[in-house]
């Protein structure tokens, strides 16, 4: 069976795609390379390479602003202008494919003047003060101003705001006063995410990045993924920041402030402290959080493992219904841990809500558990508990504010903090994170597991689920089937992955699941078909295939993550992002997985304990259903 998906055409206006000439795939073929001279240095590059990439190969820096390694060419800021011999006008290095021998000069008088004018022009339209801006010291416009020696505002500088700040979304704040119209957000939202929340509206000086009819972001179709934030070069986009409230809670002696930390932030927060991407600071972070004043530091891996138990059981129940009882069941089952993906589905494929696992995301499960089980155990009034979640994600802020997320009787998770926001809190405390001593997570949710950690990377939820299903159903060690329990077919950054897992034999039903399943016989000889997609553009390709009745409609279980690369590429992660950076973060995550003693959700002792002490009916039991499962909203594409 072929699981090749047809290439979905990019929806970004082709002017923004640069109508790029494809880079020659086989440079060694005749005519596959072309000679070029840049500032007098000669080199050969594959046909179709841009001047920008060619220059980078030989260490020549050409400034960019609208260019981004994740996005198609735009060629709109013109800061990368260079001189090409024989051409009257300057050419945008990022958008100019070399197809014939050319001579390029990157810093002539004309070029320097042009770049300076462009920076000056951008500043003349930019209302903002760097010292009062979240992107201070991490802003591409600010960096350009420095690089081009801007020491006064040649063409003026706005003295008052020109646009209202849009605070309507729980997740994303838009401040068009700081927007330089590079359109990176637009290309992200259309091409990477295939949502299309934002576009440029108006012409000339009135053109601005806008939502549908300029409505507030909170009331249009936006999945809160924050991918636009990660690619914005300036402070025009940021996440809705609750750090002040979190500080207030910490400083309130009556409050018991508990933080859970997701796997991805640990693999990335070092980037905010000058560390190279891929530096894991899991245990240093625990120390820092305690120094900041959090009362307890828990590992979201606990609830990730809990999710696997609940979601995995749900899958087995669906399989039983279909295979043993001959009743209809909604297949494929979709994962539900990514709130960006969940909202995407609610908007664009509401008819598939029955396919979404009813299991809450790890963040929300944890919140509900803390305000019930933990509160009882510790004898703390849940009213006094403040739950904070450190997440790589801006959509988690929306998720914790969903009205139905109060099954504990209180708001299950009070605040979602992004990696960037926590880095700011740590800096405020004067802590130099990378140099801290290591310390462990707190009990009773302190056992770090590999299965939980890999939730941070695309394919991780699937791998964790498969590790558990194989052992619980087939009754063999995962290691017997996959070396070192690494299920490689579902790993990696390919947009959509597909794998089949035959179940030639079945084992005995473990005690935990015995009330639900008399035996596994119905699975004997079955072939479990699974798929993984990350970034909603890829999710869309899979969903369209399912709608067509294509190969993906035959899957049993599909992991969908809203963000490219999975959570490690989330909208709350450190800026900048690029394929290399995400790869490095994934490296850190998989290294951590390998290093843990417990690497399977069903072996997490804290998870086993909660089923023993609190969720006594086992996975998908009555109490689980009340606290750990949820329901969804058919949103459609309508706008309030």
């Amino acid at each position, binding site marked *: 069976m072929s699981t090749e998906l047809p290439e979905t055409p990019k929806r970004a206006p082709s002017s923004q795609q640069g*109508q790029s*000439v494809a880079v020659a795939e086989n440079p060694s073929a005749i005519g596959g390379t072309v000679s070029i001279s840049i500032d007098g240095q000669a080199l050969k590059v594959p046909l179709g390479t841009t001047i920008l990439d060619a220059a980078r190969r030989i260490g020549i820096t050409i400034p960019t602003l609208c260019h981004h390694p994740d996005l198609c060419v735009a060629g*709109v800021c013109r800061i990368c*202008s260079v001189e090409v011999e024989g051409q009257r006008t300057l050419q*945008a290095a990022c958008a100019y494919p070399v197809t014939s021998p050319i001579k390029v000069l990157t810093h002539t008088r004309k070029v320097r003047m042009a770049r300076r*004018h462009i920076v000056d*022009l*951008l500043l003349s339209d930019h209302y903002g003060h760097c010292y009062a801006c979240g992107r201070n010291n991490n802003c591409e416009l600010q960096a350009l101003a420095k690089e081009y020696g801007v020491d006064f505002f040649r063409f003026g500088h706005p003295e008052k705001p020109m646009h209202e700040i849009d605070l309507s979304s729980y997740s994303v704040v838009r401040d068009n006063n700081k927007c330089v119209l590079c359109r990176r957000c637009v290309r992200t939202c259309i091409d990477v995410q295939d949502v299309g929340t934002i576009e440029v509206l108006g012409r000339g000086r009135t053109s601005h990045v806008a939502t549908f009819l300029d409505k507030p972001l909170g009331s249009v179709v936006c999945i809160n993924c924050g991918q636009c934030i990660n690619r914005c070069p300036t402070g025009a986009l940021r996440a809705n920041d609750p750090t002040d409230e979190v500080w207030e809670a910490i400083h309130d002696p009556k409050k018991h402030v508990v933080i859970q930390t997701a796997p991805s932030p640990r693999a990335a927060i070092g980037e905010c402290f000058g560390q190279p991407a891929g530096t894991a600071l899991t245990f240093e972070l625990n120390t820092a959080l305690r120094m900041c004043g959090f009362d307890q530091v828990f590992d979201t891996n606990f609830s990730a493992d809990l999710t696997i138990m609940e979601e995995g059981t749900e899958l087995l129940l669906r399989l039983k219904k279909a295979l043993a009882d001959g009743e209809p069941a909604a297949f494929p089952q979709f994962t539900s841990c990514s709130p960006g993906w969940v909202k995407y589905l609610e908007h664009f494929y509401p008819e598939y809500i029955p396919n979404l696992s009813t299991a809450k995301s790890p963040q929300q499960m944890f919140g509900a558990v803390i305000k019930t089980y933990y509160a009882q155990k510790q004898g703390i009034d849940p009213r006094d508990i403040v739950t904070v979640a450190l997440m790589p994600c801006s959509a988690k802020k929306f998720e914790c504010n969903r009205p139905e997320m109060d099954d504990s009787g209180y708001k299950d998770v009070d605040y979602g903090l992004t990696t960037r926001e926590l880095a700011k809190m740590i800096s405020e405390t004067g802590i130099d994170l990378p140099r801290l001593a290591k310390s462990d997570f707190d009990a009773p949710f302190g056992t770090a597991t590999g299965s939980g950690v890999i939730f941070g990377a695309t394919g991780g939820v699937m791998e964790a689920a498969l590790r558990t299903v194989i052992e619980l159903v087939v009754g063999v060690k995962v290691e017997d089937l996959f070396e070192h329990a690494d299920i490689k077919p579902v790993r990696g950054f390919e947009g959509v992955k597909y794998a089949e897992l035959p179940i030639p034999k079945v084992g005995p039903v473990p005690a935990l699941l015995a009330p639900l399943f008399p035996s596994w016989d119905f699975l004997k000889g079955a072939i479990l078909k699974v798929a993984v997609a990350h970034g909603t553009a890829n999710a869309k390709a899979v969903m369209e295939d399912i709608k067509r009745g294509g190969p993906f409609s035959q899957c049993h279980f599909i992991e969908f993550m809203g963000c490219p690369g999975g959570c490690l590429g989330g909208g709350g992660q450190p800026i900048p992002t690029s394929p290399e950076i995400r790869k490095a973060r994934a490296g850190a995550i998989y290294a951590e997985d390998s290093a843990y003693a417990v690497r399977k959700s069903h072996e997490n002792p804290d998870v086993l304990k909660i089923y023993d002490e609190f969720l006594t009916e086992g996975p998908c039991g009555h109490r689980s259903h009340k606290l750990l499962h949820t329901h969804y909203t058919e949103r459609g594409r309508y706008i309030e």
Partner: protein
Amino acid sequence: MSSLPTYTEQIPEAGLRAAMGMDRPGIISAIGASGLKGRGGAGFPTGVKWNFAAAAQADQKFVICNADEGEPGTFKDRVILQEHADLVFEGMTIAGKAIGAHEGILFLRGEYAYLRGHLEAALAGRRDRNLLGRGILGSNLDFDIRIFMGAGAYICGEETALIEALEGFRGEPRNRPPFPVNTGFMGRPSIVNNVETLAWAACILGNGPEWFRSHGTEKSTGRKIFSVSGDCARPGVYEFPMGLTVAELLREVGGEDAKAAQIGGAAGQCVPAKDFKRSIAFEDIPTGGSVIVLGPQRDMLDVLHNFLEFFVDESCGQCAPCRLGTTKLLEGLDMLRKGTCSMAYLKELCSLGETMQVASKCGLGQSSPNAFLSVVANFREELMGRIPTHA
């Protein structure tokens, strides 16, 4: 109102019939030999353009007629479409044969919607006469033409923005390269030609390249249709040979006392009286055909204000030099008019104008400072009086 006199001397469809008897390279070399250059403003050699598109390999190709005519002071395409629509369609059909296209699209300016019925009728008539459709005139040429309505943006006259609009996107210029002759409408090789260019192409096939070359100059062959407006006795549409001087043109239209002529529309240059002996030709003062006569009583800053406002409104807003640069020039002009623009800032603005000419993404931004720069260069006295003396 003048018309295309050469057309009345033509036998209808003579060009098309001649083209039917020629092979594709033959048609292209006839156009090449005539020296015809684009009448839309940029003056790109039409034969070269057709040849590129003919050489490109693709499953589909397109002939696009640019009837977006949005340049201020230009209205000759409207008259051509009104009075000689068949000649334009004939030119498109010939181009279709030359490059190997089966589909032609006329991109009609939104404001010209009232011409649509007339044009559709002309197309229907051509289909009835087997001048369009399958097996044209008994040959194996299949070609048809449809009309696409523009929505009223000047920038959609720029060929790549036009193609974007045709594809249903915001009308915004694309990066080049690649060029439309390779990657045009729907990613297929496409030629975009001005209405007048296509009409001349039909005439050239009918009368031969030598006939065309017998007018005009060495580098700017043939005749050209002009839209003349402004402070003159006889505004209207004229046909002149290329290469005539500004003074000659002004004499014909009754604008001898002009202090300046804006040639090439808002994007063109402002030619002062002392330069009226210069000629209108691609090698000297290029034009898409717009001549706006500026009488002695005109305040050049008012004229400029008018043009710059136009660009501020019509810039697509895509690229920084144009979106923000046009605004800065307009603000600077307002400062000049109020007497608050210092000499130093004026110099800064001129330097900005030079940047816009080279760093803007498309022809709009590249030409929008032209008028500003030529007024500053040529009407210094008029400006100097308005610059604060202490500055």
